[in-house]
């Protein structure tokens, strides 16, 4: 193929004198200057808050009704609405032990699903199917949680592993289809989401999961021994799931940057033809990556079925997690640690958003808007630079995927 749109001929560039602290840092993509690591996200958050405030004001219907008669008072109402909303958002996210518990609890599945999407990105695959994988993984865990009688010390690991297998199968299916037939994973994972959702709806009505004598699509209570133990007692929802999530972060870090298969994932992600040249089995890699990705989503499913009081499961336990996961993987630049931080940020926004809804009447949808704004500002550093008139970052634009890779 001819070269299209390449920048300067690389031949004309001398060795760049960039220096980093060590081989590992560079390979792992960490060790960026602190300023760059913090400044841009901070400015992005500030901008998102500003735009969010604007949206709150514009959608304040009552204030608009007053606008004709008492414009100043109306404007005051609007500003007050913004203040209350953001105050409650903050309090709901960080303002109390309960808030912190909620933030961490909400972050748990987000981090796990975010890791799933990030792993895919690293290998050049776009896994939109976290939702379906959460369903399938969650159902596997649920089954173990209902029907296998084990002491807690075994029960939880078995259920969690079952979830990983379930999610892994569902994700691996998409990978296998891509490897064997070339069917694009964006299509297959979306379709598998629908299939999994309908399957969940059906299976929760069968005797496999339903409580005896019940007619409603809700599972029986999970055995005590399979419930993820809460950390600070049952009045706070935070459970050991957060440790699973953090362990998964380190595990994914190890896989991606310290293991041979992670080397292969990344090579295949950047250049499938180079990995073919290097003797890697690209078809196997696609399946393996999607299995791993699905297994991580499956973990999120496990925390949603085993860790969510009241420990009975209804049909929509995947919620918006699969969707949020895409944004937070992008925000975390597909790096496990980045995903951890952005998962915590999103968890805080969503947990705070629940409180904000009660106090200020601003639904959690605002959080979705803010999430998207943060992602966009991170992805377009030039935009932030233009707005703040600062040299925000020298970041090269992140190229996540390479087209449809036919």
């Amino acid at each position, binding site marked *: 193929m001819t070269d299209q749109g390449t920048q300067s001929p690389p031949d004309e560039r001398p060795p760049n004198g960039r220096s980093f602290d060590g081989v590992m840092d560079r390979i792992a993509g960490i060790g960026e200057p602190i300023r760059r690591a913090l400044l841009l996200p901070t400015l992005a958050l500030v901008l998102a808050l500003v735009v969010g405030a604007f949206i709150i004001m*514009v959608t304040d*219907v009552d204030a*608009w*009704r007053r*606008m*004709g008669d008492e414009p100043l008072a109306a404007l005051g109402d609007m500003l007050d609405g913004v203040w209350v909303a953001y105050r409650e958002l903050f309090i709901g996210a960080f303002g109390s032990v*309960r808030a912190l518990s*909620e933030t961490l609890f*909400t972050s748990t599945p987000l981090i796990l699903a975010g890791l799933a999407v990030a792993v895919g990105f690293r290998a050049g695959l776009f896994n939109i199917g976290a939702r379906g994988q959460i369903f399938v993984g969650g159902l596997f865990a649920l089954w173990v949680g209902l029907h296998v009688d084990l002491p807690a010390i075994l029960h939880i690991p078995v259920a969690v592993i079952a979830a990983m297998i379930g999610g892994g199968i569902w994700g691996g299916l998409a990978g296998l289809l891509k490897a064997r037939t070339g069917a694009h994973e964006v299509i297959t994972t979306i379709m598998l989401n629908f299939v999994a959702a*309908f399957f969940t*709806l*059906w299976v929760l*009505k069968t005797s496999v999961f339903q*409580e005896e*004598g*019940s*007619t*409603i*699509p*809700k599972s029986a*209570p999970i055995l005590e021994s399979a419930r993820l133990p809460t950390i600070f007692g049952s009045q706070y*929802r935070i459970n050991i799931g957060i440790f699973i999530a953090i362990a998964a972060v380190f595990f994914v870090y190890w896989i991606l940057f310290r293991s041979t298969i992670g080397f292969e994932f990344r090579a295949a992600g950047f250049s499938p033809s180079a990995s073919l040249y290097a003797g890697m089995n690209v078809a196997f890699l696609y399946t393996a990556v999607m299995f791993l990705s699905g297994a991580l989503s499956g973990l999120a499913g496990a925390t*949603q079925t085993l860790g*969510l*009081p*009241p*420990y*009975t*499961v*209804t049909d*929509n*336990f*995947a*919620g*918006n*997690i699969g969707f949020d996961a895409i944004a937070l993987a992008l925000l975390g630049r597909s790096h496990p640690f980045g995903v951890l931080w952005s998962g915590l940020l999103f968890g805080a926004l969503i*947990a705070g958003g*629940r*409180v904000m*809804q*009660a*106090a200020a009447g601003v*639904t*959690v949808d605002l959080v979705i808007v803010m999430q998207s704004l943060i992602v966009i500002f991170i992805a377009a550093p030039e935009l932030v630079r233009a707005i703040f008139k600062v040299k925000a970052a020298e970041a090269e634009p992140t190229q996540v995927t390479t087209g449809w890779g036919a």
Partner: protein
Amino acid sequence: MKRQMRFFAIFAVFALVLAACGDGEGEATTTTEGAEATTTSEAMDDTTTSEAMDDTTTTEAMDFEAVKVCFVTDDAGVDDRSFNASGWAGVQDAVASGAAQPDPILLESASAEDYQPHVETCLAQGAEHIVTSGFKLADTTAAFAETNPDVQWTIIDFGSLGPNVTGLEYQTDEAAFAAGYLAAGVTQTGIVGTYGGVNIPTVSIFMDGFARGVAHYNEVNGASVQVLGWDPADPDAGVMTGVFDPADPIVTATCESMLDEGADIMLPVGGAINLPCGTAIQSRGIDGALVGVDADAVEAMPAEYMDLWLVTIEKGIQIQTQRSIEAHAAGEPSGGTSLVGNLENGAVGLSEYHAWEDRVSDELAAEVEQILEDIKSGAITWDKFVVGAG
């Protein structure tokens, strides 16, 4: 400077839009404050309470000590034109009657994760009466009702979960049975149809009763009216759209598909998924009708479908929610009881025959009346749908 001007322009447009709509809206919100959360047109403000509900209407003269109410939806959201919407309307009615304090809290859930924090938020905000909507909230409600015995709870579409919880359940198949009989009596093609959103008990109970009612008609009159979309013998295989979103073309296609097979009386169950069916009937020029569900369709649905409603299978969520709050406000909370709404207690019933009144012969009307009576008395009975947790 230029940029500010542009922002201002956007504001101006917004103000204009709201001003244009504000007048009509202001009227609606002042005169029938909250009573019509789901109405969309002024033409419907005329709130005729239906026959079946008459005896249950509370007088507004009662002496209430207004309680602070908090309403938590399930993940369908308050705008579902179904049980969430009806329940919220009931809360607002309670506000209007003085039983609930103004500005009740509304918490919409986006997923199962939200239920517990929302309930906790209600408690933290000092709610005295918490209404949880939908069976998905049952276990959460049970847990918090137990630990908060001083708070009164109402749960919609589920049985009582404790001494301080009022369960609102509905044996809607009783009314649906009568509606099925009625539909079988008026159909000109000999085919009636029903479809739902997804196959869950709160949906399929309507379809089941309806189909049985048709079968009863056939039995009594030796007729052979056919039901499309539901077979009581095979409850897994009912016709479902898979969505509650009426704009999805699949809803239109599902209804049209039944019309194509000759159905002329349709019972779509689930939010507003009956509206596209109304459109289909109209645009096909079919002399057919719709059977409404939940709240009386003549009031709840847009005016353009006014002449299509045969009858509505009413499910008294709105009124019972209101009454549950009112009982609390009057100092006699109904906690501990599962109010299984049925024909007998009037929380389930058939509305008036509205647009199709002339089409229902006196004999048929009498037969339907008799069937309603027979169901109440137990003279007609069948393997009824189990409501609630069982």
